[in-house]
């Protein structure tokens, strides 16, 4: 019994000590996290609070998200300052689409062996009309897909 009592008081003391160490920081951290979780934009962020200084880190989709993270943290009572370590993912490079001239040349080559296929190019879009045998369609499409078109409108009649 005595041993249990000693153990129990030790546990009680140690938990008191831990809570007493930084109660406020933990509370601040929890409320920032709660606010961020509520917004899908900031859901994946990590928050750390030390002596009222909140540090936010994680990856943001854009600058607006980064700003919002900082504002959210600042709005919580007890936050003295915010270290905003969020990184913004650069937007992916736009898709390269070939010029109509290059596409027209490419399309001429690709359809050379498919005389019943007519192909036109306009603003990066390749439009196919005419007819084709079913077993030739995939081959033609594979060939056209390597030309870097914006898209391919297949209006072919398939025989």
């Amino acid at each position: 019994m005595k041993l249990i009592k000693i153990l129990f008081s030790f546990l009680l003391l140690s938990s008191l000590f831990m809570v007493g160490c930084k109660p406020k920081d933990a509370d601040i951290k929890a409320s920032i996290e709660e606010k961020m979780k509520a917004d899908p934009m900031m859901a994946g962020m990590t928050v750390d609070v030390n002596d009222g200084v909140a540090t936010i880190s994680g990856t943001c989709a854009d600058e607006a998200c980064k700003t919002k993270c900082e504002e959210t943290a600042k709005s919580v009572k007890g936050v003295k300052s915010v270290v905003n370590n969020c990184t913004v993912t650069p937007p992916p490079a736009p898709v390269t689409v070939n010029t109509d001239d290059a596409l027209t040349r490419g399309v001429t080559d690709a359809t050379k062996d498919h005389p019943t296929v007519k192909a036109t190019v306009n603003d990066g879009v390749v439009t196919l009309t005419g007819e084709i045998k079913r077993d030739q369609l995939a081959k033609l499409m594979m060939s056209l897909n390597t030309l870097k078109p914006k898209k391919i409108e297949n209006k072919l009649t398939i025989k």
Partner: protein
Amino acid sequence: MALQEKYKELIDAANAEGISNLQVKEQDNVLYIDGEASSGAAKDKLWDVYGKLDPDFRSADVVMNVNVAAGAGTKAKVTTDKTNLNIRKGPGTDQPIVGKAAHESTVTLLSKTNDQWWLVKTESGEEGYAYAQYLSPE
């Protein structure tokens, strides 16, 4: 992101086939898939999946530019339907024909001008440009 949902099976297949430099981008309602396949079989697998998800390729919402990786010195088989493959002076069907590579013969890749035209050497030693669609790297 809607297209990445629609073509999830295709993107999964690209990952499963180990397509290198794989890039998947969605822009203006078109899904662009770029990369290099290690073999013709891997490329064909992707086209099978694409054809299943979009029968007859009618939706105009995918541009899949996946080519078989091949460097200089690679041997490639001439996979025309029946005919011999034209070897041309330059990269383009408007270029004069300087030779022929027999159906099912093997050519050696010297360099790639682009994804469409490869500079090759035939079994009989003729050098010129051939349309890559009819060449299957071995």
